[in-house]
């Protein structure tokens, strides 16, 4: 999961102020599901500067709070690899439970919540001590993991149960189960902590859920002229720096939708690479990076111009992306 999504909005806004005049080079990290590597790109030159070998089938990636480490869910190796972001080596391996797909880091920087896709569990891992703190039973094929900005709630989505499970981070107990569209894959809290969004890949919709009563308070669906409904499969989500826009990847529709958060209207469709999975905002908030699983590249979107400016080849089947300022 792109760590940048759960960074406090303040940091994003601070970054946004730097926009325009040669923001300092950031580092972009991409997990390549098929060749078991992380591609590391220089944010200014957009060149791959490192390729880090990790465990098998890396998908979800998360930055540590201080940015020194990258946590990599290596699904087929049943572990989380810890990559040092200066030496670009795997320095530790964390237990993760079976088949970790996505993970989210608690604001305390210690508790990593890992979705175990083939075990119907969310595993809570202490990243400092390298031990499992808790296993929380959830629905079938857990995937999406979203931490509320204040760290009180963890939202997990289960793909075959079609629910968002709201977990109290303090007790590890499920406090609400919200039925959403088919195959929910990602949960993202608004920076204000009042609501969270869930993308449903097969349902083809977004659900907006209120933290007051855990009710669905809104829904967004998509249509693209000339694209079959079945090909519109929302998965990855990221907010713009001011949180006024939500960017949503639409999978085999090869597009990123731009949703106005206030009106919930779909404003634009941006054509990116093939089978777009996930996305992350640049540190200055001016660009979006998307991972395109079939065309094996990263699309760079200029947010102000609302167009794709670059396509950068990375490894095979790129999936997750995070940005380190």
């Amino acid at each position, binding site marked *: 999961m792109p760590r940048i999504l759960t960074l406090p909005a303040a940091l994003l806004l601070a970054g946004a102020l730097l926009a325009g005049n040669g923001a300092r080079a950031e580092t972009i990290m991409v997990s390549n599901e098929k060749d078991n590597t992380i591609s590391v790109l220089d944010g200014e030159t957009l060149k791959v500067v490192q390729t880090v070998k990790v465990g098998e089938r890396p998908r979800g990636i998360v930055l540590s709070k201080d940015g020194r480490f990258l946590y990599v869910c290596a699904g087929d190796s049943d572990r989380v690899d810890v990559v040092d972001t200066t030496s670009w080596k795997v320095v530790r391996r964390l237990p993760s439970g079976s088949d970790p797909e996505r993970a989210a880091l608690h604001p305390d920087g210690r508790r990593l919540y890992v979705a175990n896709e083939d075990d119907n569990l969310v595993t809570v891992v202490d990243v400092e001590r390298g031990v499992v703190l808790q296993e929380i039973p959830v*629905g079938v094929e857990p995937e999406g993991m979203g931490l509320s900005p204040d760290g009180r709630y963890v939202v997990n989505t289960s793909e*075959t149960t079609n629910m968002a499970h709201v977990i109290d981070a303090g007790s590890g107990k499920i406090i609400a*189960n919200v*039925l959403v569209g088919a195959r929910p894959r990602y949960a993202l809290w608004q920076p204000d902590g009042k609501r969270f969004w869930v993308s449903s890949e*097969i*349902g083809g919709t977004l659900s907006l859920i209120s933290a007051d009563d*855990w009710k*669905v308070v809104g829904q967004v669906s998509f249509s693209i002229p000339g694209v079959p409904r*079945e090909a519109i499969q929302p998965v990855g989500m990221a907010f713009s720096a001011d949180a006024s826009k939500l960017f949503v990847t639409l999978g085999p529709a090869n597009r990123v939708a731009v949703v106005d958060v206030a009106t919930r209207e779909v404003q634009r469709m941006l054509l990116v690479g093939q089978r777009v999975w996930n996305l992350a905002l640049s540190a200055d908030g001016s660009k979006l990076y998307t991972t395109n699983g079939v065309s094996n590249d990263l699309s760079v979107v200029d947010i102000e111009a609302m167009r794709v400016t670059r396509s950068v080849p990375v490894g095979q089947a790129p999936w997750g992306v995070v940005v380190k300022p």
Partner: protein
Amino acid sequence: MAVLRPSGRRALLASALLAAALPTVAAAEEAPALAIGYLALKLPRQLPSTLIEPPPQDEGLQGARLGLKDNATTGRFTGQRFTLEEHRTEAAEEVMPALRDMLGKGIRLIVADLPADMLLQAAAEPQAVLLNVGAPDDALRNEACRRNLFHVLPSRAMLTDALAQYLAVKRWRNLFLAAGPGPGDRLYAEAMRRAAKKFGLRIVADKPWTHDPGAQRTDTGHMSIAAEAARFTQGAPGYDILVVADETDDWGESLAWRTTDPRPVAGTQGLVPTIWSPVHEQWGATQLQRRFRAQAGRVMTPLDQAAWLALRAIGEAAVRSQSTEPEKVIAYLRSPAFEVAGFKGAKLSFRDWDNQLRQPILLAGPRSLVSVSPQPGFQHRTSELDTLGADRPETQCHAS
């Protein structure tokens, strides 16, 4: 959309939302249960054509059991339980008594792996709602359709349309059709002829295969098969691909690599249009394949997939309708709101004109997924999935 909360009290929300208790052991035991039946007639099989795939004795059942498990996991959060009553027999005369026994216990939703004639007998019981997982017959979706008979597995027309679309895209337009002697073989060949017409392909040779394949285990058996296949395909008008119709998996493998002209084989063997294949790993299918293998100790077959999907369809209807009462679950299965995910990248739902589950069809080689139909470019007003099989304008079903 429903919100489920652990408050223990039930509250009706705006769009039919219910709050339900979170799973405690006591609550789970008291939770209302939906009983589902599984009824199968398994005639003893002849020797398989290859030793590498011995026919599993629990084919279908294992799929249903995994579906039940998936429903149960979800049920923990919705306060619902699901049970499965299994009845599998080799004696045709046991089928109807077993069905009546289930109905007598209030089990109305029944997953049925039965041949077409037995399905129609079963559907004559007005209380029964059958989910067909074993009979691909087009007649059951047309002139012989029944309102209380749903079809989870694709019809032969859907399979052959899926293959024909792919051949049209490849521009492999000239077909040599070889049909076996079994009744299923003949119906498959008939479906292939219709599919060829529908998608602009030509059948340039259409021959019955009559050779007895029994010789393959004798020493030098391969020689007689090779000679037979060469003779069978010799002098055929120019064709692009040989389509075999051998549903019993008896001789279809005997033609590949042995034709006089070098031509690929498709149909019931070779490149196979199918609901499911062990080679399928896209759209999260890897997860289902793994869960199935961990449970059953073998790969998931098309019948297992259909049975799994039948259980999931019932589970999904129960969760969304917030009910374990058969009437309400059945009503939801029929409603336009119903949809279920089946690891093929599209939501699946029942066609209201013939109760057939619309679904993508895999085109699978022995060790790789070749394609998935509908093929891009075959457009449809409402759902591209309806380019496969009998569409609303051409249906002969008038019962639904």
